[in-house]
């Protein structure tokens, strides 16, 4: 099937498959699925900048579906999302300007590819290490291990200025209370700075930023995993709107491709979001780690395969790894949900 904006022919069944997987993982992990969409579209032969732009459009649509589902489950902290968004908007504009410069220089493909590999590999290995560490600790001591050490230090950090005087207004404290996230006091510059950093990286990579925002919210801001899942979606929608607008203006969004994948993703997201109620946090994190790591390996193989020298078959291996691992994780999510529904099991204890 030929896609006019991407100017490339792609098998629509591959797009549907990618959409279902993205939707399931997006609903489960609270990510827009950008890391998987852009990676998948690159593997399917879509030009890098169109893969980024179309990924943004799909992120927007699938995040709307997932957010509505998570809002219904009470997993969204609007105050925290608002603060991170203040940093995200200028960062997206900056990232888009850099992307255009890289495209003009003809280096955008390798830059996006290698940056993805580094980020996904780091995050995947970190989550798997965290799972291994917390499991070993729990076995030895019989207690759950705290993953919020950095967050506690951040809460205790009294960073100036403590308040500002707005013109014609009384003095306003710069420390925010986030009841939904169970944060008693945090300086507003911390989530704004985090929003800027995540927004810049996601704008550069064409991702919603959920795969970066989720670990940041859990390990740096220290909020419960399920709230991090729901809240990161709100931030992803903003990234999706700004990103889609910027890439559409330069005609780098394939609407037809995005609609096909979005329709498929909506089915998967129902499954994924429901499953978060029945799977313990540690399980969500390790599955997330395995998925992003497979994305990193797939893009690395694709980059090596593009170098020629008889290594072109690595592109096929990359497709198999990406769709195979993420498909298996999506099936596993379905099995976990089904098992808990049939067995009437409740979600395991939250690891704080």
């Amino acid at each position, binding site marked *: 099937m030929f896609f006019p904006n991407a100017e490339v022919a792609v098998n629509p069944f591959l797009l549907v498959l990618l959409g279902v997987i993205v939707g399931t993982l997006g609903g489960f992990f609270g990510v827009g699925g950008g890391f998987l969409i852009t990676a998948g579209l690159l593997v399917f032969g879509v030009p890098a900048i169109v893969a980024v732009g179309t990924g943004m459009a799909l992120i927007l649509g699938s995040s709307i579906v997932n957010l509505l589902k998570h809002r219904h489950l009470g997993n969204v902290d609007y105050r925290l999302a608002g603060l991170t968004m203040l940093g995200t908007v200028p960062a997206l504009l900056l990232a888009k300007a850099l992307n255009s410069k890289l495209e003009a220089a003809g280096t955008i493909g390798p830059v996006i590819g290698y940056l993805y590999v580094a980020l996904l590999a780091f995050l995947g290995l970190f989550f798997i290490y965290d799972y291994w560490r917390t499991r070993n600790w729990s076995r030895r001591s019989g207690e759950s291990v705290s993953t919020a050490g950095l967050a506690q230090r951040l809460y205790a950090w009294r960073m100036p200025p403590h308040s500002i005087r707005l013109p014609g207004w009384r003095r306003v404290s710069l420390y925010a209370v986030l009841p939904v996230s169970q944060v008693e006091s945090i300086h507003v510059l911390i989530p704004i700075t985090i929003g800027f950093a995540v927004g810049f990286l996601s704008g550069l990579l064409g991702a919603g930023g959920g795969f970066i925002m989720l670990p940041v919210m859990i390990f740096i801001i220290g909020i419960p995993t399920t709230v991090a899942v729901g809240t990161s979606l709100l931030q992803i929608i903003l990234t999706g*709107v700004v990103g*889609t*607008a910027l890439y*559409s203006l330069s*005609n780098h969004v394939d*609407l037809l491709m995005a609609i096909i994948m979005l329709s498929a993703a*909506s089915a998967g997201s129902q499954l994924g979001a429901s499953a978060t109620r029945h799977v313990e946090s540690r399980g969500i994190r390790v599955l997330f780690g395995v998925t992003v790591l497979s994305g990193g390996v797939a893009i690395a193989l694709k980059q090596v395969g593009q170098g020629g020298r008889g290594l072109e078959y690595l592109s096929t291996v990359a497709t198999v790894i990406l769709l195979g691992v993420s498909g298996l994780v999506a099936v596993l999510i379905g099995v976990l949900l089904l098992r808990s529904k049939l067995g009437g099991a409740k979600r395991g204890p939250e690891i704080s």
Partner: protein
Amino acid sequence: MYDALTRFLGTFSADNPILWTVLVIVVIGGTGLGLYAFWEVVLKAVSAVFSRGGNGPGDSPR
């Protein structure tokens, strides 16, 4: 039909970048909302069918 659609998408996006941007956001946002509503209705209907199936005559309140 498909040819006309691809031709429209190709030319409209190239000739009207601002309108194209608005169209993309509206279509994607609208599709997202529509799909959420669709799945809510489907899931409610499915759960209603299953819960009705589980209530036999003996289960009904007296």
